[in-house]
C-alpha cells in the first residue's frame, strides 16, 4: 500500500508542477492579455475589469498563483475570448474526442505490440524476428507527420476511408449500429496513423525485455521441468518482463497524446488539437493553459493506472514496498 501512496504523491507533485509551469509561462508573457482585449470592440470593459479582478493581476506573483490555483480547483479554467464562453466546458467536449482517439490507439497499439514483441523474442535472431526488426526499423524512420499526411493522401485518392471530421452528415438519423459503424470508419484513419507511429518503439521494447527474461535461470529451470512453451512465455516470461513495460506504458501515453494533437489537426478530428491550434493563433491563452493542464491530468491518471497495474502484476514491488 505504501508503494501506491508514494506513487500518488508523485502524481500530485507532477500535477502541481505542471500547473506552476503553465502559470509561469503565462506570467512571463510580455504585456497582459487584457491589453489586447481592450482593442477588441466585442469585449465589454466590464468583462475586462471582472477578469482582472478574478485573476488578481495587480497582486504579487505567489498570491496570483494561489488564486489561480483556487480558481482551477473549482473548475474555473478561465474565459475564452474567441468563443465567448468559459473554457472548461469548451475543453471538455473536445477532450472527450481526443480521449476516444488516444485510448483506442493505446489499447490497439499494445494489443499488437505484446504478441509481436513476444513472438519476436521467442525466435530471437530467426527469420521472423529479422523481418519484424526490419519492419519496425523502417517504421521508425518515418516520422508521425509524414505518416499521417501520407495516409491522408492515400485515403483521399482511393476513397477507402472518409476523411475529416468525426461523423458523416446526417449522423443523428442513423440507427445505433449505423452510428457505431460511421464513427468507427471515421476513426480508422487517425487511429491507424497513431498506432503505426507508436508501434515500432513498443515492439522493440517488448522484444528486448522479454528476450532478457527468457535468458534468466528461473526460466531455464522451468523449461527443464517440462512446462509447456506457451505457458512458459505468457504465464512466466511476460509477467517477469512486465516491470519495464508498464513503465513504458506511461511514456507511450505521453507520446500518443502528442501524436494525437498533430494527427487531429492533419485529419481534422474535432479534438483538443485543432482547438489548441486555433487558440494559439487567436491568442486565446486561457484555452491553451487549460488544454495543457488537461493533457497533464490525462497523463498523470494514465501513469497512476500503470502504477496500480504494476503493483498488481509484479510481486517484487509489493515485497520491496512493504519492507521499506
Amino acid at each position: 500500500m505504501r508503494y501506491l501512496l508514494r506513487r500518488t504523491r508523485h502524481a500530485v507533485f507532477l500535477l502541481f508542477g505542471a500547473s506552476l509551469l503553465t502559470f509561469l509561462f503565462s506570467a512571463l508573457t510580455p504585456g497582459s492579455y487584457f491589453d489586447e482585449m481592450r482593442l477588441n470592440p466585442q469585449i465589454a470593459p466590464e468583462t475586462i475589469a471582472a477578469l482582472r479582478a478574478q485573476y488578481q493581476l495587480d497582486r504579487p506573483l505567489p498570491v496570483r498563483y494561489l488564486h489561480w490555483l483556487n480558481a482551477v480547483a473549482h473548475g474555473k479554467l478561465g474565459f475564452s475570448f474567441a468563443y465567448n464562453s468559459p473554457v472548461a466546458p469548451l475543453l471538455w467536449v473536445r477532450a472527450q474526442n481526443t480521449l476516444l482517439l488516444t485510448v483506442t490507439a493505446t489499447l490497439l497499439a499494445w494489443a499488437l505490440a505484446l504478441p509481436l514483441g513476444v513472438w519476436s523474442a521467442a525466435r530471437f535472431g530467426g527469420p521472423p524476428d529479422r523481418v519484424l526488426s526490419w519492419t519496425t526499423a523502417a517504421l521508425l524512420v518515418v516520422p508521425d507527420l509524414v505518416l499521417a499526411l501520407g495516409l491522408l493522401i492515400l485515403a483521399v485518392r482511393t476513397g477507402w476511408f472518409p476523411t475529416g471530421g468525426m461523423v458523416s452528415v446526417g449522423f443523428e438519423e442513423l440507427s445505433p449500429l449505423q452510428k457505431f459503424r460511421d464513427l468507427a470508419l471515421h476513426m480508422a484513419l487517425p487511429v491507424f496513423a497513431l498506432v503505426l507511429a507508436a508501434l515500432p518503439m513498443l515492439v522493440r521494447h517488448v522484444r528486448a525485455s522479454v528476450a532478457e527474461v527468457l535468458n534468466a535461470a528461473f526460466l531455464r529451470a522451468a523449461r527443464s521441468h517440462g512446462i509447456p512453451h506457451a505457458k512458459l512465455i505468457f504465464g512466466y516470461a511476460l509477467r517477469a518482463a512486465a516491470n519495464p513495460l508498464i513503465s513504458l506504458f506511461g511514456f507511450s501515453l505521453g507520446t500518443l497524446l502528442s501524436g494525437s494533437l498533430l494527427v487531429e489537426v492533419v485529419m481534422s478530428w474535432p479534438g483538443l488539437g485543432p482547438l489548441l491550434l486555433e487558440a494559439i493563433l487567436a491568442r486565446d491563452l486561457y484555452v491553451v493553459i487549460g488544454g495543457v493542464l488537461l493533457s497533464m491530468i490525462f497523463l498523470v491518471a494514465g501513469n497512476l493506472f500503470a502504477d496500480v497495474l504494476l503493483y498488481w502484476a509484479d510481486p517484487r514491488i509489493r515485497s520491496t514496498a512493504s519492507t521499506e
Partner: protein
Amino acid sequence: MKLRGKFTKWFVFLVLLHCVVAGAGFFAPYNPAEQDRQRPYLPPMRIHCMDAQGDLHLRPFFYPLRLREGSFEQFEEDTGTAVPLYFFTRGADYHLFGIVPSRLHLFGAAGARIYVLGSDAYGRDQLSRILFGGQVSLLAGLLGAGVTMLLGAVIGLAAGYYGGWRDDLLMRVAELFLALPWLYLLFALRAFLPLSVGPLEAFLLVVVAIGLVGWARPARLVRGVVLTVKERDFVRAARGFGASDIYLLRRHILPETASVLLTQAAILVPQFVLAEMTLSFLGLGVPEPMSSWGNLLATLQQYSVLVSYWWMYLPALAIVPFFLGYLGLASALQERFDTYKISEKSGWSRT
C-alpha cells in the same frame, strides 16, 4: 573495428546528405523564390533519353507540359519541342554556403523551366524549395539541439556535482519536463511567444522554443555520469591538489560526459528537425516566403491540394533519409560507448 566501420558509414552518409542541403544553390536549378504564375501546380516532369519517334539521344531532355485539350487540370507532354538538359551549367545567382557567389548549377535547361518535382501554387520549383527549405529546417534542428545540449550539460553538471537540494530541485523539474507531452509543451511555450514577427525572428523563436523543451533527458544522463566520475581517484586527487570547482568540472568531468552528450545529440537533432516541421506545418513556425520543410507541407491542409496535387507531399519524404542517418548514427554511438546493449547471444531460442 566493426563498430568503428559502422559509425564511419553513418557519419559519411549524414555528411553527404548535409552537404547536398548546404549546397542547395548548386543542386537546385532555380532560385526558390522565383515565380512563374503561368505554370501553377505542374506535375513532376519526366526526363527522357528516348524521344517520341523512338530515337535514342545521348543528352537527356524533357518535354514541356501543356494542358490537355478541353481540360483544366490534366497535363500532357508537348512532344513537338524537346528541351535538352545541360549539366554544370550557368543559371540564377546564389551564394554557395551563404558566402561564395556563384552561378554554377548541377543542371538546367534553356528555353523552358524544368520541374523535376513539380511546381507549387505560384509556379515555384518544388525541388529548389525543398533543398533550400532543408537549410532552414536542419539549421533549426541543429541549433535547437545545440541549445538543448548546452542547457542539459550545464544543468546536469550542476545537479550532479553540487548535489543536495540543488540536485533535488533540478531533477524534479527535469522529471516534470520529461512527463509532459512534448508537443503540448511546445504549444504552450509557443503560445506565449510573439506571434506575428519577421521570418528571422520567427526562426529564432522556433529554435528557442524547441531548445527549451528537450533538455531534461540529457541533463539526467549527464548527472548520472557526473555522480560516478566525481568520486573517481583522478578527480579526488585533483581536488586534493586544490583545483577549483570550475576547473574540475571543465577539465576532468565534462570530457567524461562527451559520450552521453554525443549520443543524445544524435538522437535529438532529427527530433528537433521534426519539431520545426511540425510547428511550421501548423503555421506557428517559419512563415512564407522563406521555405522550410514544414511550411512547404502546409499547403496540404487545403483539401483541393490534397486531392489533386500529390507532389506537394514530397517535402515530407525529404526528412526520412535524415531520420535514417541519425538513428543509425545514434545506435552506432550507443554500441560504441556501450551505454545500451542487447548482445545477439543473450536471446533464447526454442530448441
